[in-house]
């Protein structure tokens, strides 16, 4: 019985961890803090926040599609990926924003974020994040 409970609890923990680790938020290594608020992530994804607290311009990069992209957009902006895409088209064509950079895959995302000060993006859980700073959501 004790063994069953242990296995059950371990499964629950693994499930919760896996759910939270569907993606990893990343920023350029020069980013000041390793934590970011959920509100800030939302404002960055929607173009409302264009500068970090240290004055560096935010360079937003998004994935072209995939489960990590869908989950990030859903978790932080309450939109589907299609609605997010249309939101940004509206921002650009009404003179309110610059389209985010679109990355083909995790490797391209990490390369872009590593190279550009102020860059922010996300990758699939388990993707290599050498040269960038993983961010935790407060």
């Amino acid at each position, binding site marked *: 019985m004790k063994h069953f409970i242990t296995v059950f609890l371990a499964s629950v923990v693994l499930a919760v961890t896996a759910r939270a680790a569907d993606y990893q938020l990343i920023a350029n290594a020069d980013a000041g803090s390793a934590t970011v608020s959920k*509100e800030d992530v939302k*404002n960055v994804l*929607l173009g*409302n*926040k*264009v*500068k970090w607290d240290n004055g560096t*311009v935010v360079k937003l990069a998004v994935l072209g599609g995939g489960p990590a992209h869908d989950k990030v957009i859903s978790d932080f902006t*309450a*939109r*589907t990926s*299609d*609605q997010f895409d*249309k939101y940004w*088209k*509206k921002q*650009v*064509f*009404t*003179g*309110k*924003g*610059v*389209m985010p950079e*679109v990355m083909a895959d995790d490797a391209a995302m990490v390369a872009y974020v590593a190279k550009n000060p102020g860059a922010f993006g996300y990758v699939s859980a388990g993707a290599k994040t050498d040269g960038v700073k993983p961010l935790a959501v407060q």
Partner: protein
Amino acid sequence: MKNTKCLATSAIISAGIVLGAASSKATDLDGLSIHGSLSATASETDNNVSYLGDTDGRLNLNLVDIILNSSHRFENGLRIGAQVYAYQLGNFKDLTLDFANADYSFSPQFGVRVGRNKLPHGLYNDSQDLDAIRTFASLPYSFYPRTLRAIDAAFDGLSFYGSASLSLAGSLDYQLFAGAKETLSDGTLPLLRGISSSLMQFNRWTFGDGVEGAAIFWNPPVDGLKLGYSVQRLPRTKLSGVLGTTATLNGDNLALAGLVDAMLGKGAWDDSGVFAGTSASVSGVDILFRTISAEYTTGKWVIAAEYKLLDELHGTTTVPALARLGQPTSSPYSNHLEYYYGMASYQVNDKVGLGYYYAYNTDVRNDASRSGNPSNYSKDHCPVISYNLTKWCVVKAEYHFMQGYTPLGLSGDPMPSNPGDGKWHSLVLKTTISF
């Protein structure tokens, strides 16, 4: 028709076709981001009604438009951008500067835009040209009339904007703006032709005190819901023109010309220089738009509804020629119009979208004796289907079951001589490439 701009218009359209066909992605030139879209619309109507071109009984390519924009954000956060919009609507062509602005965001709560800015009003005024972001080929004809963008697409001035968290109450998005409005001075513009009566042919519209207004949207703590209030005021506007000839007059106005000829001699109206061709104006008009809006996005559904009041107040109509008939040359002018619609769209899958809206408009809100005339109202039932050929190319087909002719009052198309029950139909086919 603006012939002097045809070459530029053609060049823009050609460049857009090349860029649109070559790539589905925006072009990036050394940090300068370039985007655009190209749309082509064909329409067919019936029952002796033409709408936005020669569409009665024939499928006519009546609207082609192209958008090109470019923007850049500097390392200090300043963003600059510009967009040109070229279109052919029926027989009218134009090339306009849609926006050209500098934008600085101090924080998510406060930013400033200076220059030519898109004019925010309601849910979709500033995005009415963006076919790629919605299921419908046309926004409701009467609520967002195509030709009204000549005055409500943009303004030159200042905007303050921001998004403020209200904690447990959600968030608030706001835009406050004020500035100047460009004078309309081309009598062939569909809007000026549309608002001209048979008696007064308008060829100029000035906006003495510019425009001021606000658009405020509350995002309550319900994912996908937003509620808004927009107001836009254009004080001291003036429409100027001339009295029409007997060739353009009809109804009571033609009877008036006949009376003049009977009193002063045959041809007096057309040839004396006292009537036809002399000045007429409607001046001092304060125009006020007020709209309440609601939009709910959940999963693959988008549901929206809006209600708008348009008031034209404190105006004076002046016709100096009336002095020859011993009549007062000036009289007060006002007008009240009411609009509303409800729409729903559903994205079935990555390819197919479905939608439906019902829209209603009347230009005689409180005058029951005239409200039954189909020239004074419109009803629009509109189903649509859209299909994404690729991620950057969409085709749409929609059908309007119309009753009433008020959309024609702004399009420059003639009202049917025999209104009957006011029923007519409009088929719209549209394709858009965007990048």
